[in-house]
């Protein structure tokens, strides 16, 4: 582990900006914040966008590497960081910026946890659609920066669809904004889109506003099982062709099912979990349309438990399989089945197992891949999988065992023009001080 050393004056500057109580500079205390193999020399907890801007101006001046941090649930994603000079926590930026239940909108500071936001609006019968893993720890800023959504992505859209405003500080210390507080707004460049999924490499998000939804009064989950991935995908296609509009539509591979249930013995079947919302007559209609393939139905506590397990799968697999590589894939709908079949054949012929779950109605898969023998190269399997992705399919590594990390960059894939992305990076973070090395370039 390398420990960064920052110029002496930096600690003084940070203390002046945030107060001594909010600057931590003892490596022993930072042990828990080891990120991608690097340990920070200083951690800082600013209380406002102004303080963040002041910190970034100092860092920009000296070319110091900054890693923005929220709940630290996604910090293992991306390439190795060569060096972390300052770990910047959003933990004190948690204010509610605006909230009027009648408008179905809310704005909060980046350090507010997803669970805090969710419970605040639930009290008014409203519903926040963002559902990243570990909502009790995951923050609004971290969720946006990593662009991570959960099973509700199917019915409510992605963060890009319901984040209506964003506040941030650029790498060169400028405070900026995009969007606003209203659900429909096209004034100025869409900064929300640019920052969602930018992994903290363009700016530090300080706050955001969202569209909210009415909480469904009743939901039910229907579960179907299939012998093969092909059968499961055929069923997905039938659902997508039907008039049904489920709020979640998730595939779970046999090993994925075992992880969700906490079982050692892997199940044999592929499952589809479909969650519907509506009155009794609407749910009866779902039951009729879905037909005899449905094995069981879940409601209330059991239903909530299964969706929580699906949501937290990316975290659970790190505990059940510490040697697993965790991939996130975005695929056109027709590429989902070939990708799952590639995984099956590559795993079988190379001595690896995989657990896949995902939003198959929108083409988002999460795949954990782990070795069954000492000779297995999971990295090689992932590389082959990546090479077989076509067109606009893309892949990112959310978690990787330390020993595999050196081969990281080769595995990622994006359909978007790299030089244009670099131009955006230079415009907002000209000295490349934000999360240097983590992203695609």
């Amino acid at each position, binding site marked *: 582990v390398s420990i960064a050393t920052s110029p002496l004056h930096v600690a003084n500057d940070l203390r002046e900006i945030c107060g001594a109580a909010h600057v931590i500079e003892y490596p022993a205390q930072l042990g828990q914040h080891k990120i991608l193999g690097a340990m920070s020399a200083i951690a800082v907890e600013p209380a406002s966008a102004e303080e963040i801007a002041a910190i970034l101006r100092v860092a920009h001046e000296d070319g110091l590497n900054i890693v923005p941090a929220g709940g630290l649930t996604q910090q293992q994603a991306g390439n190795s960081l060569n060096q972390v000079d300052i770990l910047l926590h959003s933990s004190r930026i948690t204010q509610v910026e605006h909230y009027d*239940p*009648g*408008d179905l909108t809310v704005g909060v500071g980046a350090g507010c946890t997803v669970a805090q936001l969710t419970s605040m609006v639930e009290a008014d*019968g409203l519903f926040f659609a963002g559902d990243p893993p570990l909502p009790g720890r995951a923050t609004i800023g971290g969720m946006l920066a990593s*662009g991570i959504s959960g099973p509700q992505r199917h019915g409510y*859209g992605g963060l*890009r*669809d319901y984040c209506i405003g964003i506040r941030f500080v650029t790498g060169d210390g400028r*405070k*900026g*904004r995009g969007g606003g*507080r*209203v659900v*429909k*707004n*096209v*004034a*100025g*460049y*869409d*900064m929300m*889109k*640019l920052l*969602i999924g*930018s992994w903290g490499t363009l700016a530090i998000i300080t706050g955001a506003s969202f569209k909210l*939804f*009415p909480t469904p*009064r009743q939901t039910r989950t229907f579960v179907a099982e299939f012998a093969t991935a092909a059968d499961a995908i055929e069923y997905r296609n039938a659902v997508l062709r039907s*008039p049904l*509009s489920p709020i979640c539509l998730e595939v779970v591979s046999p090993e994925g099912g075992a992880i969700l249930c906490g079982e050692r013995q892997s199940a044999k079947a592929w499952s589809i979990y479909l969650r519907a919302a*509506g*009155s009794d007559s*609407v749910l009866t209609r779902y039951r009729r349309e879905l037909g005899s393939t449905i094995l069981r139905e879940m409601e209330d506590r059991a239903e909530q438990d299964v969706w929580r397990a699906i949501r937290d799968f990316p975290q659970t697999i790190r505990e059940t399989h510490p040697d697993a590589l965790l991939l996130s894939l*975005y*695929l056109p*709908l027709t*590429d989902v089945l070939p990708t799952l079949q590639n995984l099956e054949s590559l795993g079988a012929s190379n001595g690896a197992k995989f657990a896949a779950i995902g939003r198959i109605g*929108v*083409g*988002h898969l999460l795949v954990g891949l782990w070795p069954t023998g000492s000779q297995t190269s999971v990295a090689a399997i992932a590389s082959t999988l990546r090479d077989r992705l076509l*067109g*606009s*399919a*893309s892949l990112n590594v959310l978690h990787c065992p330390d020993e595999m990390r050196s081969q990281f960059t080769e595995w*990622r*894939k*994006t*359909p*978007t*023009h790299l*030089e*244009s*992305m*670099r*131009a*955006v990076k*230079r*415009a*907002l973070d000209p000295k490349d001080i934000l999360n240097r090395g983590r992203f*695609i370039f």
Partner: protein
Amino acid sequence: MGLPEVIGDLCKIVGRDAVLDRPEDLMLYEYDAGVRRSTPGVVVFPQTTQHVSGIMQLASAAAIPIVARGAGTGLSGGAISPNGGIVIAFSRMNRILEVDAENRCAVVQPGVVNLQLSEHVSHLGLYFAPDPSSQKACTIGGNVAENSGGPHTLLHGVTVNHVTGVEVVLPSGEIVQFGGKAAESYGYDLTGFFVGSEGTIGIATAITVKLLRKPEMVATLLAIFESVDDAARTVSAITAEGITPAALEMFDGWTLRTVEAFCHAGYPLDAGAVLLIELEGLREAVEEQSIAASDVCLRQKAREVRRAKIEEERTLLWKGRKMAFAALGRLSPSYYTQDGVVPRSKIPGVLEHISQVAQRYALTIGNIFHAGDGNLHPLILFDMRDAEQFRCVLAASRDIMQYCIDVGGSITGEHGVGLEKRDLMPLLFTDEDLDVMTSLRNAFNGAGVLNPEKMLPAPRMCREISGPSSNAVLAQEGM
């Protein structure tokens, strides 16, 4: 290189019959559906992406402004060229390149007319959701540039929510791809950033759009109220009830009577205001929500709630909505449509304010708008030949926009900032906010050749152009 040489070179790229430079031809391209005018130096009609690339290289080399234009239905001046600039018109790049029903998407050229795409895929049970009132004429390229909306954006979102990929020609002439058919992708979401960038960072030559499955059932209700205030209060009451209409439109009484006289849609002539409410989805859900929405309206003092019984009745109700601006336009030589947004709970207040503004400036202002998402379209009648009255119109507009901002809203919900509202941007954004946006524009369009004088306020444009451009850096690095 001067304009005559550029015109000669344009003819070499696209052929003489695809270049217009006679004054009588150029006059047709000096305006859009808004109130500003300016005459381009030349209009060129590319047919291929390669043509667009060649034209861009030429414009960049000659440092002549270049402005993309679809059907010219925009209301913010986005497609208006500075005097002597190049207008690149997309009416000959109007092919649907691919329909991929299995992936629920289509790839189209920018000149494809919005409604034509939905008609083209209708037999597959699919459609393209953004539905601006001008959808019979406006192009998808223009929708992408302005991030256009329409009545049904309440449920389905604006254009950006339906675009997953764009092929873009950069000012250098380079042809690049952002995103594709996948719903999202790893890497910066430059697709999302591009949509609504008003032609200031590149020109789209192929657009990948999502297609939605047509709903099983649609119910259209007309709720009739004695007063604007009652109708306005009903809007947030409907969402508070957990009902999510696909569209929720409002007309005030004066507008209603004018529209009815024009297109006989069957609107009541003596109402204070009406709400046009549309619900879509599964039959069972639509039936329940229709009853629930009706009940809310009646509780909020609606005189009557009618439901379109057959498709013809529904079409007629929507025809009235989509023809409204044309109907109002008959009443006076000119009209000016605004595009403010307020949080929906502030609709009663903003309508009261608009009526005060109308009195203060002695103007006639009609209100017909997307009430469900708080997107107002106050329509001001005036006579362009009366300079003093036009000055009042602009002052009244600014007054209404300021009110929208003061209650937490925005200056544009779907028309774009364009030429029209760029000077209002400082009311909404700080200098530093605008500075960040300017640095992004310069990252792609540092020389300011692409659609200058749009979106970002004027002084900034001059200051930034004189500074070092980051585009030069891109060029060095082989972009």
